[in-house]
């Protein structure tokens, strides 16, 4: 991976995107705006799973009608997220916040898969009644994970934990600072 990100950083398009006046800003803005679509719709579905809101709407309708918007947001986030990584590969790859965010992304996706396959498989039984405990657990995990994905994602932009900022051995270890090329 280190070899890959070091190579990526030297590709002309990566440098162009990083140094462009508008493209980087436009990409990051699209990333932030897509959060409203992705996390916004997820949170509303989670609130239905928790049984605190939209209680007159069947769970099956809530998930079916909101899913396309969540997926649309996710696609925009993935495309712009990859582009943002591509623009600043080495620094992002070594960022502690990026690393935690990646772990949380995996947890969030596993939770979404568990929710869709295991939690919702008998949802017709509780479509309008009280939601079962498993649905509430899945919703709580989802709210927690996506909240902190936003938190850590935002923190990537700050430089206090950059390898060139004289970090503690702990941070250096997690960020694998030894592998950062000397000329960056």
């Amino acid at each position, binding site marked *: 991976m280190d070899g890959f990100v070091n190579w990526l950083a030297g590709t002309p398009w990566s440098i162009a995107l990083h140094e462009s006046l508008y493209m980087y800003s436009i990409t990051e803005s699209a990333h932030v705006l897509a959060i409203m679509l992705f996390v916004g*719709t997820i949170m509303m579905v989670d609130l239905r799973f928790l049984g605190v809101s939209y209680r007159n709407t069947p769970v099956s309708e809530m998930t079916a009608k909101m899913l396309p918007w969540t997926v649309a947001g996710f696609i925009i986030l993935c495309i712009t997220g990859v582009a943002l990584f591509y623009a600043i590969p080495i620094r992002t790859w070594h960022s502690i916040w990026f690393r935690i965010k990646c772990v949380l992304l995996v947890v969030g996706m596993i939770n979404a898969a568990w929710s869709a396959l295991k939690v919702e498989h008998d949802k017709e039984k509780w479509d309008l009644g009280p939601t079962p405990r498993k649905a509430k657990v899945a919703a709580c995990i989802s709210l927690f994970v996506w909240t902190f994905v936003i938190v850590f994602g*935002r923190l990537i932009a700050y430089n206090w934990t950059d390898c060139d900022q004289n970090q503690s051995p702990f941070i250096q270890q997690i960020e694998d600072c030894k592998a950062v090329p000397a000329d960056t």
Partner: protein
Amino acid sequence: MSLYHIAQAIEGSPVGQAIRESTWLFPAIEVVHLLCLAVLGGAVLMTALGLFGVGLKTASPQEIEVSARPYMTSSLVGILITGLLLGASEPVKLIDREAFLIKMIALALALLFTYFVFNPIVRKGDTGVQAKASAGVVMALWFIVALSGRWIGFS
């Protein structure tokens, strides 16, 4: 007293100074600002998508709005409080930025339009062209607020 002097007074205030001089206070407030934005996005979308006929169908937009209202209002309160704190940390820089000016105008319009046009229309149970148009305007206004807000950091 000019706008510049007011900005200078805010910047020199204990709150402005504390946020500017702390390493983590600004990012922490900014993260809450961003989280509130996500909630606002969800709350606005629920009602607007329902009106366009591409969201919930069994609940009327009127009913959806009742469910979404607490999230819309609380996220807006959160956005305004955190936004004021963020602004207080560097107002002198902000008042010269085009993106900030655009955001403040769009924010005022978005708040007025949401609470005095869009919400009343939805609460009346109107789902016609007028309601759909107002949903489009509401989404466009909040889109501009969020975009110009992000752009403050780039300008």
